């Protein structure tokens, strides 16, 4: 019986391990390390040492591509993570090796295959975020999705003016000479005459043209339609719940006027003072201490010039407020950031844009909450 139980346990462990490995998200990161050597090539132990350093460098570089909040969490836990690096780096592949005999150094470049899920879980545990922990913080989620129902574009108003001025004059000059003569002799009388004329004519004109004008451009007039943000809410709620936070949809809060929030965002990019105050008051009345306020603006679809798919951009603006004190205090601000989704149809592309946006927003919120010690 005990053998059967042992085998069953082993099988269960193996299957869980395999399934875990099958669903691990493996991210490739590259690292480089240089060590001093004496000879023309490194000794085997020196090479191993360099590869180990390069592997750590790869992990550091991977974290360096994350937001500052995550880097801070990693910095705090770096020592313990590196001491058990084998749990997070599944494999190391050497890409290039070089020995510089003049500088007496050996440089190796590696690619480290990082189990990003395991690493993220480790960082979450360091930050006190865990799906298994009880008493996770309740956070009010107020997110509005809007799309432009119409966009009126205006042609440029062009005003142009041309002033013409011309001046000129003509001069004429001329003279005429005549002469007559008469000769009288005993036998005859003769007369003569002579006439000559000179004339000159000169004209000069000057035209001056001045032109100018102005062009007036008018911003597009956009009428927003507030839509359903269920896809976004679901994605962000699930991601936050995985770290032990409970996002409370606004619909469940008594005395909370969601329609006022939607009406404000349909007109403008900000909530009115009255709506903001009433939102905070309703949240406090429900004993909530944090609010996530934000908009997701889904733009008009266009055609991706590369793949030919429909493309939809989503712009995100969000802020996390701490309302535990007398006045709301901003804890984190996200955006405006844009994410694009592609798909064969507008619906698919919009879903992709929504999913990507929600995932990225949740990541930043979690990291900011961890740094602030909100658990």
């Amino acid at each position: 019986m005990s053998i059967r139980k042992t085998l069953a346990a082993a099988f269960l462990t193996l299957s869980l391990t395999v399934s875990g490995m099958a669903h691990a998200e493996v991210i490739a990161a590259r690292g480089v390390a240089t060590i001093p050597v004496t000879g023309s090539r490194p000794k085997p132990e020196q090479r191993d040492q360099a590869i180990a350093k390069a592997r750590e460098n790869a992990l550091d570089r991977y974290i360096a591509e994350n937001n500052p909040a995550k880097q801070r969490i990693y910095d705090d836990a770096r020592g313990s993570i590196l001491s058990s690096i084998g749990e997070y780096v599944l494999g190391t592949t050497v890409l290039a090796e070089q020995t510089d005999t003049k500088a007496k150094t050996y440089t190796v470049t590696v690619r480290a295959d990082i189990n990003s899920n395991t690493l993220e879980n480790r960082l979450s545990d360091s930050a006190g975020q865990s799906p298994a922990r009880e008493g996770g913080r309740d956070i009010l989620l107020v997110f509005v999705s809007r799309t432009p129902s119409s966009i009126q574009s205006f042609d440029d108003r062009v005003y142009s003016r041309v002033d013409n001025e011309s001046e000129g004059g003509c001069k004429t000059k001329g003279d005429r000479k005549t002469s007559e003569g008469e000769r009288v002799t005993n036998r005859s009388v003769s007369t003569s005459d002579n006439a000559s004329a000179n004339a000159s004519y000169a004209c000069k004109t000057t035209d001056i043209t001045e032109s100018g004008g102005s062009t007036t451009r008018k911003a597009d007039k956009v009428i927003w339609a507030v839509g359903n943000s269920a896809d976004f809410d679901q994605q962000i709620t699930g991601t936050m719940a995985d770290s032990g936070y409970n996002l409370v949809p606004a619909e469940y809060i008594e005395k909370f006027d969601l329609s006022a929030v939607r009406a404000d965002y349909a007109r403008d990019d900000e909530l009115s003072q009255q709506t903001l105050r009433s939102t905070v008051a309703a949240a406090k009345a429900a004993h909530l201490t944090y609010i996530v306020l934000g908009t997701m603006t889904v733009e008009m679809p266009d055609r991706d010039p590369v793949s030919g798919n429909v493309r939809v951009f989503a712009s995100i603006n969000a802020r996390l407020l701490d309302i535990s004190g007398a006045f709301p205090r901003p804890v984190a601000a996200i955006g405006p950031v844009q994410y694009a989704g592609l798909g064969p149809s507008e619906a698919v592309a919009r879903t992709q844009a929504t999913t990507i946006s929600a995932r990225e927003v949740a990541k930043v919120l979690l990291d900011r909450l961890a740094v602030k010690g909100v658990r």
Partner: protein
Amino acid sequence: MLKGALASPLFVAAYAATSVAEPLSDSPMSEEIYFAGFAYLTDYQDVSQRLPCTSRVVNDTGAQIFDRQLFELATSVPCQAKINDGLGTLKAGRAAYVTALAVNHEITDVERIGNQYKLSVTLWGQLLVFDFQSKSVVSSTPVVSQFIDLFDTDPTEDEILAAYGRLVNGEDAGGLKSQFAKAISGSILPRNSSRTIRVTQSTLSEKARQQVIDLRLGGAETYTANIASRLSGWLTSQQKICVLPAASNQALGGKMAARLSNGDVYTLNIPAPDYELHLTLDGFKKVLVTDVPAGKGYVYGAFVTLMAVEPLSATRFFEAQIRVGVKRTQPATASEINDGPVFDEALQELFMEFTQAIEPADDAWARQNILPTQTAVSSMQALRKMIQTCR
């Protein structure tokens, strides 16, 4: 550098032999490959510019009808893998193979010979197999099809279109469907690569840029993307390695992605490669080599500079200029040769020969076609070692 005359029908036949005469893998594959049909290895917005006649013929036939014809053809020939026209699903940890007949560009060439006009239409493409899990091209078999006809007068646009119609839809041995059938029956899936390689930079020198415009080879930007795609294809097919695509295009991001039910495959984020290839087209050159009463002989040369580098350590495995030329004879009775298609053919020949010469090593070719000559063999050796690590 000098190659024998590539009389077009012979070139197509020789080419097809090169691509098909591959031994079948000794490890039979039971992999399922989803069939995406006919696609374009160019941006969606450039299709009508780069392949005006082909796209028109396919649209007139009906894209879905044409896809169906290709699928029936694919399943009628022996193939190592199981071709499926259904929808696949991308699952974590498992490869998701999708294949398509993707065309790159078309070339229309009219040559006057005596009192007749020779019309030659050529279509360059690849039989691509792409793994949406690793985001890499796991197999690429070049597919070149050509049709030649003679006319008593300068062919009209309708006659040219009809020639493309016969090339695309016809049953001729050199036609697209026949070449596709050969490619499908010879195509194999390579083993997974342990390292990845990608053409990350593709540029035209100032001289080449102007030449591309003057030779009417297309817009400079589209030609730049086009040559990167061609080099990637040749590397995959000749060296049997997985290559990350140079860029997304209508085939990968549109037509092939549509064969998987996951919505996120449309956002094709190509991962960073382990090794990068930087390609520069330096230009083309035409040289008169013979001038006799019967006609003139020219060599059309293509010149590229290629660098293979590991980006983080900046280790350079290969950096050299490669040059290849093709001969072309202009009979005394013929009109002037249309240089553009011949130069393009020279470039295609360069990519094919170069990728062939990597392994097995062809030192003689390297000494003849790579500059500087003194380091040609050693450069190819370093490149070969790098490519070997990618298998």
